[in-house]
C-alpha cells in the first residue's frame, strides 16, 4: 500500500467505526458495546486472513476459485484432529482400516493415471473403468467396516477418531497444510480449465469437500458437531477470570465490573493473536508481491501467452498460487473454528464462505493486500450490523403505516432479508462506481 492520505484515511475510518461501535451511547446505528465492537473486530481479522487467501488467487493470478468454502472447511478440520483429546480405542478399532482404505484409493488412482499415460486407446477404454471400479470396491471393503468400528466407539460423546490433544495454535499451520494438500489435488485436476469452467468446477469441489465433512462421522462427527475445542494459549476462559480474586481486584482498580473485564480481556487476547497472524501474512504477501516472484505473477496475469513465450511455466505457477491461496484459506478456517470453540460442518455454506469473501476482496480492491484487509473488515462490519439495521430500517419505513396493516406486517417479517440484499447492493455499487475497489492495485 502506498502510504497516501486516502488509504490512511480509509483505515482510520474503519477504526473509527469500530471505536464508535464501542464507545458511543447506544443508538440506531451503533450498539455502544465494546464487546460487540471487539467481536466484530475478531471475526473481521479472520475474514481479513481469508480475504488475503482469495486475493492471492484472484488478485495475483486471476484464478477464480468458487470453492473457497471447501478449503475453509478442510482447514477447520485441523483443530479437531490436533487439539481435541483422543477417543480412546478409536484408532485401534479402525485406524488401520482407514489407512488401508486410503492406500487402496491412492494406488487405484495411480494405476489409472499410469494406464491412461502408457496404454493404447482400446486398452484404456476397458482397463480404466475396471481399475477404477475394482479399486473403489477394495476401498469400500476396507473403509466400511473401519469407519463403522470407529463410529461405534463411545458413540454418544465422540464416535470419531479424536485428536492428538496438542495446543490448538499448532492446528493453524496444520489447517493450512490440509487445505494446501486438497488444493494440490484440485489444482492438478481443475487448473487446466478456463475461466467459467474453472469457477464451476471449483464450486463443485467445494461442495464435495463440505459434504464429506458432513457425512463422515468417524472424522469429525459429521453433523453431530464437535464441541469444546480448547482455547489457544494465552486466552483464558471468562468464568475462570471471573472467579479469580486477583483478576476481579484488578478489574475493579480500573473501574470495570468483573464480567465485562473478563469478556473484554478474552476478546483482546484473541485480537492480539489474530493480529499477529495477519501481520505476518501481510509481511509475507507484500514482500512476495514486491519481489521478482510478484513481477512474474503480474506478468502471467497480464498476458499468459507472452509469459509462456518468455519461459514462465504458467501451469506450475498457477498451481503454486492456488495452493498458497488455499492454504491461507485453510489457516483462516482453523482460526475460525478456534474462535467458535466448535466445529459444525453444517455451517459451511457457499453464500457465507465463498461469495461473501468475494465481496470483501472486490470491495477492498483485488490485487491489493491492504485492500483485501480493509474490505474484509468493512464487509464483516456491515454484514454484522445489517442484522440489526435491517429491522430498524423497516420499522422506520413502516412507522407511518397503521398498526396491523398487512403490508407493514409483511415488510417487518421480511426485514431480516435485508442482510443479503445489502451485500448484493454494495457489491454492485462498488463494481460499478469503483471497480478497482477502495484501495486499488497500483
Amino acid at each position, binding site marked *: 500500500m502506498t502510504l497516501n492520505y486516502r488509504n490512511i484515511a480509509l483505515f482510520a475510518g474503519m477504526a473509527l467505526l469500530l471505536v464508535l461501535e464501542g464507545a458511543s451511547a447506544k443508538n440506531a446505528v451503533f450498539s455502544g458495546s465494546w464487546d460487540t465492537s471487539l467481536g466484530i473486530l475478531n471475526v473481521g481479522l479472520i475474514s481479513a486472513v481469508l480475504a488475503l487467501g482469495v486475493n492471492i488467487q484472484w488478485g495475483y493470478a*486471476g484464478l*477464480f476459485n468458487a470453492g473457497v468454502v471447501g478449503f475453509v472447511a478442510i482447514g477447520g478440520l485441523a483443530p479437531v484432529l490436533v487439539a481435541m483429546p483422543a477417543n480412546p480405542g478409536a484408532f485401534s478399532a479402525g485406524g488401520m482400516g482407514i489407512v488401508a482404505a486410503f492406500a487402496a484409493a491412492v494406488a487405484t488412482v495411480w494405476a489409472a493415471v499410469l494406464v491412461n499415460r502408457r496404454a493404447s486407446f482400446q486398452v484404456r477404454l476397458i482397463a480404466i473403468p475396471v481399475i477404477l471400479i475394482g479399486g*473403489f470396491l477394495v476401498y469400500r471393503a476396507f473403509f466400511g467396516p473401519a469407519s463403522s468400528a470407529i463410529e461405534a466407539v463411545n458413540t454418544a460423546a465422540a464416535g470419531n477418531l479424536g485428536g492428538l490433544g496438542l495446543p490448538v495454535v499448532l492446528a493453524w499451520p496444520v489447517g493450512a497444510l490440509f487445505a494446501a494438500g486438497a488444493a494440490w489435488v484440485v489444482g492438478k*485436476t*481443475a487448473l*487446466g*480449465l*478456463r*475461466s*467459467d*469452467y474453472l*469457477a*464451476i*468446477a471449483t*464450486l*463443485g*469441489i467445494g*461442495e*464435495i469437500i463440505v*459434504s*464429506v465433512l*458432513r*457425512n463422515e462421522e468417524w472424522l469429525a462427527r459429521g453433523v453431530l458437531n464437535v464441541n469444546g475445542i480448547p482455547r489457544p494459549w494465552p486466552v483464558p476462559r471468562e468464568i475462570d477470570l471471573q472467579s479469580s480474586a486477583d483478576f476481579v481486584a484488578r478489574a475493579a482498580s480500573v473501574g470495570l465490573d468483573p464480567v465485562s473485564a473478563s469478556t473484554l480481556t478474552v476478546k483482546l487476547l484473541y485480537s492480539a493473536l489474530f493480529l499477529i497472524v495477519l501481520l505476518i501474512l501481510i509481511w509475507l504477501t507484500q514482500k512476495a508481491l514486491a519481489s521478482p516472484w510478484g513481477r512474474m505473477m503480474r506478468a502471467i496475469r497480464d498476458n499468459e501467452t507472452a509469459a509462456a513465450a518468455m519461459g514462465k511455466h504458467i501451469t506450475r505457477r498457477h498451481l503454486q498460487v492456488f495452493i498458497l491461496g488455499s492454504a491461507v484459506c485453510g489457516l483462516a478456517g482453523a482460526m475460525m473454528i478456534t474462535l467458535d470453540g466448535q466445529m459444525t460442518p453444517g455451517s459451511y455454506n457457499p*453464500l457465507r464462505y465463498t*461469495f461473501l469473501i*468475494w*465481496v470483501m476482496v*472486490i470491495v477492498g480492491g483485488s490485487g491489493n493486500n491492504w485492500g483485501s484487509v480493509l474490505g474484509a473488515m468493512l464487509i464483516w462490519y456491515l454484514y454484522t450490523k445489517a442484522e440489526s439495521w435491517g429491522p430498524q430500517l423497516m420499522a422506520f419505513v413502516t412507522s407511518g403505516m397503521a398498526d396491523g396493516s398487512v403490508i407493514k406486517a*409483511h*415488510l417487518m*417479517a*421480511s426485514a431480516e*432479508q*435485508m442482510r*443479503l*440484499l445489502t*451485500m*448484493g*447492493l454494495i*457489491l*454492485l455499487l462498488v*463494481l*460499478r462506481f469503483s*471497480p478497482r475497489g477502495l484501495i486499488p492495485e497500483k
Partner: protein
Amino acid sequence: MDFLNAIVALLNFVIIPASAYGAQLALGALGVTLIYGILRFSNFAHGDTMAFGTAITILVTWGLQSLGVSISPLPTALLALPFGIAATAALVLGTDRAVYRFYRKKKSDPIILVMASVGVMFIMNGITRFVIGVRDIQFDDGVRFVINAREFRTATGLAEGLALRSTQVITLVTAVLVVWALFWFLGRTRTGKSMRAFSDNEDLALLSGINPERVVAVTWIIAAALATIAGTLFGLDKSFKAFNYFQLLLPIFAAAIVGGLGNPLGAIAGGFVISFSEVAVTFDFRKVVAYLVPGDWTPDGPIQLLSTEYKFAVSFAILIIVLLFRPTGIFRGKSS
C-alpha cells in the same frame, strides 16, 4: 413376471423421476447456456431468477383461484405462467439495463460480469423473499396422478407399483414443447438466426448489421421465460421455497457445463446426465436384483455405489470427470 417387476421398479424409482427432474434441470440449464452463448458469462443469478418468476406465477395463480378461474384437470399455474414470464422478463431487462449493460459497453472481462451476477443474485434473493416470504408453498391443483401406484398394482397384479404424476407428464410435455419452440426460433426466425450468428462470432455479426442490444434483449426475455417455466414446473412437481432455488443453481450449472456452455443441445443432454446419474449412482439396486436372481441369491445389504448423502457430490464428480476428458463439455461448448 419377476422380470416385469424389475422393469417396473426401475421405471418407478429411477426412470420416471429422473426424467422429470432432468427436464427441469435441462430447462434451467438452457437459460444459463443461452446467456453464456450471447452475453458470455455464467449467470449466478439464474436460480434466483427462477425463484422470482415462480413467486409471481404463484401470486397470479392465487389471484386466479380466488376469481374461480380454473383449467382443471390442469393446474391453474399454467394459466398464470405468462404473467410470471412477463414480470420476470421486465425484471431481468431492468437488471440488464441497470447492471450488465454498463460492463458490456465497457467490454469488461467476463469474470466481472460473473461477479455482478453474484450481486444480482443476492438482491433477487431478497426481492423474492420480500414478495412471497420464506415459507414452503404448495400450489399445484388439478388432478395429481395419471397412473397411481396402488391402482397400477391392482390393475396389473404386479407386486411393484408404477406411479406417474400429472406434474411429471406436464413437465416432460412442456419441456419438449419449449425446447421445440426454442430450436424453431433459433433455427427459423430472423431474430433467432441473428442470435446464433451473434453467438458464433460477435464481430462478424456486428459487421453484418445485427443490432446487438436487440439480440441481448431477446436473449434476456427468452432466458426469463425459460427460468420461469423451469421454476414453475419444478415448484408444481415438488413445492416452492425460495431457499431451494439457490440450491438448484448448482446442479443446473453442472448440467450446462457437462453439456458444454453455450450449446443448447448440450444443456438438454447435461440436464438428463446429471439427473440420471444422481438417481442411478445412489440407487439401491437390491430390489431390482432380487427380482432377477434366484431367491437365495438375494443380497442382504444395499447394492449401491454411494449412499444418498453423496448424491449431490455425484453430479459434481461427474462434472469434473467430464471436464478432465473434454475440457469444454460433451458437446464442446465455448470458452471465453
